């Protein structure tokens, strides 16, 4: 799952750094992801993992790292 998230971040996150240099806990916002780009990441994640993020999950802390994103997706999958 982490690899798929990294690919989505590479394609949609508009990060200021190479996604391969990020650890699972690196702060994506500090790595240059804007609020605008984060919405595109959310849309791509919903498509890729066939989930829908409820509105109360659409907040910075859920999308701030690869680890927090995968945790959220796992939560929705279960």
């Amino acid at each position: 799952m982490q690899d798929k998230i990294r690919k989505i971040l590479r394609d949609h996150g508009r990060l200021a750094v190479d996604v391969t240099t990020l650890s699972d806990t690196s702060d994506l916002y500090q790595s240059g992801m804007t609020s605008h780009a984060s919405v595109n990441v959310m849309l791509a994640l919903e498509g890729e993992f066939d989930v829908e993020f409820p509105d109360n999950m659409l907040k910075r802390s859920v999308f701030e790292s690869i680890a927090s994103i995968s945790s959220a997706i796992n939560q929705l999958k279960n």
Partner: protein
Amino acid sequence: MALPSNSPLVELARSIGSGIAAGYADQVDNDARFPREAVTELKNQRLLSCYVPKSLGGHGATLTELALMCEELGKHCGATAMVFAMHQIQVACLVHHSLTDSFFASYLTDLAHNEHLIGSVTSEVGVGGDMRSSVCAVELDGSSFVLNKNSTTSSYGAEADDLLVTARTSPAAPSSDQSLVLLRKGQFTMEQVGNWNPMGMRGTGSAPFKLCGRGQALQIMQDPFATISSRSMVPVSHLLWAATWVGNASASMARVKGFIKQQARAKPGTLPPTAIRMAELAPNIQLLRTSYRYLLTEYEEILSNPQRHEELSTVGYAVKMNNLKLSGSHLIVEIANKALQICGVAGYKNDSKFAMGRILRDSHAAALMVGNDRILNSNANMLMILKGD
């Protein structure tokens, strides 16, 4: 929270609004100059620090009181109300995010004693109006920093005692990784690099400036600007701006009522031909007032419960507050425009007691200060992912 109709702070603002602010409003507008008489009186009455908690020497005002004060000032001088609102937005960012930081607690204590006027430097040449993006950066060297910025519009930049400035956290940081930095009088120069001769809000002095500042690392707020922006700067801005627009709307209605009453007295027993338009105006004012006050009450409830603070960082909350800015800025122009139609030539004449010129020109600033198209773009993006409306 119930509206504090008998708040002494709101009473003071009412008195300053109808007295000094009203007395100089046309001169401030004509000369496009800072409303120094009214702002000096706000300082004299210790209202610039009223949102500072009592434990630090302030009045411990509620946000609702601040909003009602903006309404009162906005009834008489849009520029005074907006300067007051913008200053209080800065104070709110400090109070909400830095009370436990000893440097900032000490600064707020000093603010309560000396009534510093705090300006905001968030705009910047090269970011296209996006407050959440910076070109300039905090350049730390040991415990001190240098910060230089070219702003496109810094309201009352020539008059502010102190400044809160957005900048990238370091020269290596991406544009969206920002800090909010306090610069104190004596630590910066603000060189005005462009004119200020606008259509309305002429007293706000929102010219472009070249800022050169230096300070100590402890003047950099600990919370990331992303957090300060979503939890305080954006919601408080939209709430207090809307409050000033309500004041502006009340001023429009006051002129309309004066005009209609004058007509009614001239022909007793008959309803003046445009009286029905006055009745059409009232629901729009009510809509503007109730929509912002509803969100204000909700915001204060969330603020009072730390467990709910993260709600302020959700996409849904950002969309909701943006909606307030979009609808409020439309409504105020509609209201002012309709008021002019009702007053007719009496409203069109600048030297008439029903003159609508300044109010109408001021009202058009609402859609431009943070451009509505930028906000619409942002909401369009967020609505794609939001499940509710």
